[in-house]
């Protein structure tokens, strides 16, 4: 199939490669041409604009960071909207606000273009291993048409509901995940303060009811003090803006997510935005007067 791909970062690059490897023709475009080069070497066609990608593709994937990036790529001059034709499909796999997704989907629908929001969980490793969890919002029939494509990228593909529902699920994913990271950081920080080896504590917890994937992976990073990303904390920080805005919009209290946001704010303030989110441990150490 003729596919387009925009957003060739740490997540997008391996995802695009899987599509190429599955035998699809791939058109790419990036704001900085250098970003496209590795994919070009793998056989992708580099286009001059997002509109050109849209013109040459039946299905276009985007994996971008911020709401404003996605809005630009779709709506700006020479953006996807200009190149799409009736029947085209846009699959946005980045994490953006449900509100933006709903706005874009209805704008695209006016031109007969279908959109799915399909954010993922599983990190860079999940993207490389093609084991991502994919949370899909939009028309179920559209999903069935593109399911074989998504199956190249992930293992768990769940249709959550209408437009924006995938993004809501992703926001929930981030709330649960980062709260767990914070809880584990607190537990390991407390162990050490109590003179107990955090490594042993983590090991013990892994066998019991507190076992979790976050404890396995980010907990290990914390005891190894291996704070190189991984998942850059600035991305989680960005996601919590979405979460708090939704809580405000819906009038829903988030008594745990709110202080987690504050810890992430403190992490960013200390210049650790590009470190792994396990760096939340270091924020606790700062409050304890360490590491200054």
């Amino acid at each position, binding site marked *: 199939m003729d596919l387009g791909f925009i957003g060739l970062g740490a997540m997008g690059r391996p995802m695009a490669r899987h599509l190429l490897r599955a035998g699809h023709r791939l058109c790419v475009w990036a704001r900085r041409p250098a970003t496209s080069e590795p994919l070009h070497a793998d056989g992708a066609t580099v286009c001059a604009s997002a509109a050109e990608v849209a013109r040459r593709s039946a299905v276009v994937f985007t994996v971008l960071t911020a709401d404003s990036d996605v809005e630009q790529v779709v709506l700006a001059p020479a953006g996807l909207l200009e190149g799409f034709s009736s029947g085209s499909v846009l699959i946005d796999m980045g994490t953006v606000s449900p509100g933006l997704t709903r706005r874009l989907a209805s704008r695209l629908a006016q031109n007969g273009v279908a959109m799915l929001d399909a954010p993922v969980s599983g990190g860079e490793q999940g993207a490389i291993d093609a084991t991502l969890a994919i949370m899909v919002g939009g028309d179920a029939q559209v999903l069935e048409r593109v399911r074989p494509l998504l199956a190249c990228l992930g293992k768990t593909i769940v249709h959550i509901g209408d437009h924006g529902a995938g993004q809501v699920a992703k926001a929930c994913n981030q709330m649960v995940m980062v709260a767990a990271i914070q809880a584990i950081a607190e537990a390991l920080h407390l162990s050490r303060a109590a003179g107990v080896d955090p490594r042993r504590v983590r090991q013990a917890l892994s066998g019991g009811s507190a076992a979790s994937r976050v404890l396995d992976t980010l907990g290990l990073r914390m005891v190894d003090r291996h704070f190189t990303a991984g998942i850059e904390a600035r991305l989680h*920080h960005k996601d*919590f*803006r979405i979460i*708090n*805005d939704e*809580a*405000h919009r*819906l*009038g*829903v*209290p*988030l*008594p745990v997510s*709110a*202080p987690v*946001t*504050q*810890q992430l*704010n*403190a992490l*960013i*303030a200390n210049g650790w935005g590009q470190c792994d989110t396990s760096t939340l441990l270091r924020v606790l150490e700062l409050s304890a007067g360490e590491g200054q």
Partner: protein
Amino acid sequence: MNIGFIGLGIMGRPMALNLLKGGHRVRVWARRPESMQPLLDAGAGAASGPADVALAADLVISMVADAPDVEQVWLAAGGVASAGKTGLVGIDMSTIRPAAARDIARRLQAAGVDFLDAPVSGGEVGAIAGTLSIMVGGGSDAFATAAPAFACMGKNIVHVGDSGAGQVAKAANQIVTGAGVLTVAEALNFAAKSGVDPAKVREALLGGFAYSKILENHGQRMLERNFKPGFKSWMHQKDMNIVMQSAHELGLCLPVAAATTQMFNAMVGSGLGEEDSIAILKLLERLSSAASE
């Protein structure tokens, strides 16, 4: 002075009336025509829209709900800026994000309007009495021009700093008042559920280091269970969201404000949005054991 006034809600109406009382010539506009009537009865002129408000004015004031409304009134087609009155002093007294205020000031400057952000504290009571606290951000010349108008509406008028500084002060004010209302409600709820008369507890606290205007005023209304606004909790929720967004932009850790925000979210989500912010007491009661009373 010739003053244009846009936005005649709970706060805007008495503020505009006080400008009239102060001897200024005032022309008004509001989205809903019926909210203009009390001002017209008091001698104000009627304008047909924001641009029209600006035509004969030396000074234009807006008092609306949120940043998109402020943008609409000042910068949209038919907005104040479109009147092309170079040298006009503009004042927005709504509570909006500091970053939004700075952005609007910058864009208005390009249109020749000298813009002040001047949010207020003191509620409807302060607006009627002309005793508002006014926190001003922007240039000194514009502040000097606006001073006589401010004097009709408020008592404690502070030029806090450059553009946006007034909104920063207001956000800080909302942190203190939001957390203040919540802690007073917690303390009185704690006393009541412990089987102790909360009125006596309030009275005792008023004499010590826990004294605050909120304990005095809001605390009293909590005891009376008078939840009529005042200051609607959905507005405080909006203001707390401004605080949270600013903290996110700046990388600030605000643990108390964050927790307080969640309680306001819960109030709005559970139908208490139109009640005064002291209805936070009802939320605490809902989350507490029914024992004692």
